[in-house]
């Protein structure tokens, strides 16, 4: 994220990530928001509820009795033609898991703000990506962010993206690190956002009595496969839409977003690949090492689903050693981002690398610069373990 300020178009505020998302939602003006509370998503929905109670937004809020119903009501509202949003975390994402592939399978433009958190058991309410990784294959677009500013920007971008692509989108922030941390956030003027996102133009809507549609059909052996391939194709198209929207968004905000953020990557021999809030800590570490003359760099993935295999493969082609840092556990397998990076290298036909897998920040564990230094040291020493290493 490039923080160049366009003073005249922005208001600078101190907001936490939850508030930043709520602020973006307010400007987006959803017709319906159906939610169920769970830490650390509550900063979003409580802020929004208060905005509504104070007459700052007209959204119909449904305080449901569970996440399964929260997403179900969102489906109903979206299918009815409304701009429909929700928000969740952790156990909530899994409670509604049954409905998630339904949303994507139906091609409903649903926006779900996620504040990511560890999964039970044991119970832990802190930040990590285990929850969003658990639902990564459900046909939802997943956009990661680093700071509260990204939480704000990504929410606006996500809304436009979902309505343009007909694929549901999750802007994701790291629980607590982003959701509960107050930071400087540049907020756009309401009218600018309003005109940027426009109005939802529903192609099919239950409320269109002149064109009665049937949503949620049964597809037999003879047709289901085709629907799914179509869905995969629609997902692939998201990349193009996303890039386009990022360009447009840069125009109104002065802030650049994109599939990836390459930080001092160009000439880097030793590269860390990762997503989310902890990238900030890595950037500081990169600067420290660069100051010592070490050629280290960071590749931060923003668009995780659909995964930009090709672009990643290209960005990393020149690197000597690569460490992939996942903020999610893997049981009986390698972690998701690591596997996606391996796949990227194969996609790019770049087979020379040994790539190391690290897992950090599980259950809200603090990741310190010292951890990152250790990773870079491993890379420098060519210590590429075949096993996962944990930054505990």
């Amino acid at each position, binding site marked *: 994220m490039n923080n160049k300020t366009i003073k005249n178009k922005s208001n600078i505020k101190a907001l936490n990530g939850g508030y930043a998302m709520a602020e973006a939602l307010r400007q987006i003006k959803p017709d319906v928001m159906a939610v169920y509370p769970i830490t650390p998503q509550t900063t979003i929905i409580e802020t929004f509820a208060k905005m509504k109670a104070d007459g700052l937004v007209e959204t119909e809020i449904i305080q449901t009795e569970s996440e399964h119903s929260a997403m179900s009501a969102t489906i109903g509202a979206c299918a009815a033609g409304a701009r429909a949003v929700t928000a969740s975390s952790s156990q909530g994402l899994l409670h509604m898991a049954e409905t998630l592939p339904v949303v994507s*399978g*139906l*091609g409903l433009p649903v926006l779900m703000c996620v504040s990511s958190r560890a999964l039970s058991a044991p119970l832990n309410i802190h930040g990590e990506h285990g929850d969003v990784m658990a639902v990564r294959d459900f046909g939802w677009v997943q956009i990661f962010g680093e700071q509260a500013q990204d939480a704000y920007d990504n929410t606006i971008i996500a809304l436009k993206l979902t309505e343009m692509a*007909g694929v549901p989108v999750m802007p994701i922030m790291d629980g607590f690190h982003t959701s509960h941390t107050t930071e400087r956030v540049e907020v756009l003027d309401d009218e600018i956002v309003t005109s940027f996102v426009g109005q939802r133009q529903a192609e*099919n809507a239950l409320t269109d009595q002149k064109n*009665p*549609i049937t949503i949620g059909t049964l597809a037999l052996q003879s*047709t289901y496969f085709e629907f799914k391939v179509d869905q995969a194709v629609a997902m692939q198209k998201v990349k193009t839409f996303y890039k386009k929207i990022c360009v447009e968004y840069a125009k109104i905000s002065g802030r650049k977003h994109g599939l990836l953020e390459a930080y001092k990557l160009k000439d880097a021999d030793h590269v860390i690949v990762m997503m989310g809030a902890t990238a900030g800590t890595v950037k500081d570490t990169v600067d420290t090492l660069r100051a010592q003359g070490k050629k280290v760099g960071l590749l931060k993935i923003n668009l995780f689903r659909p995964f930009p295999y090709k672009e990643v493969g290209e960005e990393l082609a020149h690197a000597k050693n690569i460490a992939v840092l996942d903020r999610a556990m893997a049981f009986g397998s390698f972690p998701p981002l690591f596997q996606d990076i391996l796949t990227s290298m194969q996609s790019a036909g770049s087979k020379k690398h040994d790539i190391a897998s690290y897992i950090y920040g599980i259950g809200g564990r603090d990741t310190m610069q010292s951890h990152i230094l250790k990773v870079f040291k491993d890379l420098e020493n060519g210590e590429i373990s075949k096993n996962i290493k944990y930054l505990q």
Partner: protein
Amino acid sequence: MESGGIIKHDLSKSPRTGDWRYQKPAVDKDVCIGCETCAIYCPDGCIEMIKHNEDVKNKADIDYDFCKGCGVCAQVCPVKAIIMKK
């Protein structure tokens, strides 16, 4: 294919559920008193009341494209105007 399998009603795409039938209801329009009981209960909505000769009351008429031959109509007819045939 329609995105997400979202479709609109189009009778031309309907299976002919008449293919299911192995017994066929036949209305004796002269016996039928036009009470509509059969039409109301027919699970497949395929009994229409239509004009029959000079009769004042419309009489039951079966749409064999969709009639599955369940025999509900014959059962509920108060005057046994419908019989099920092989």
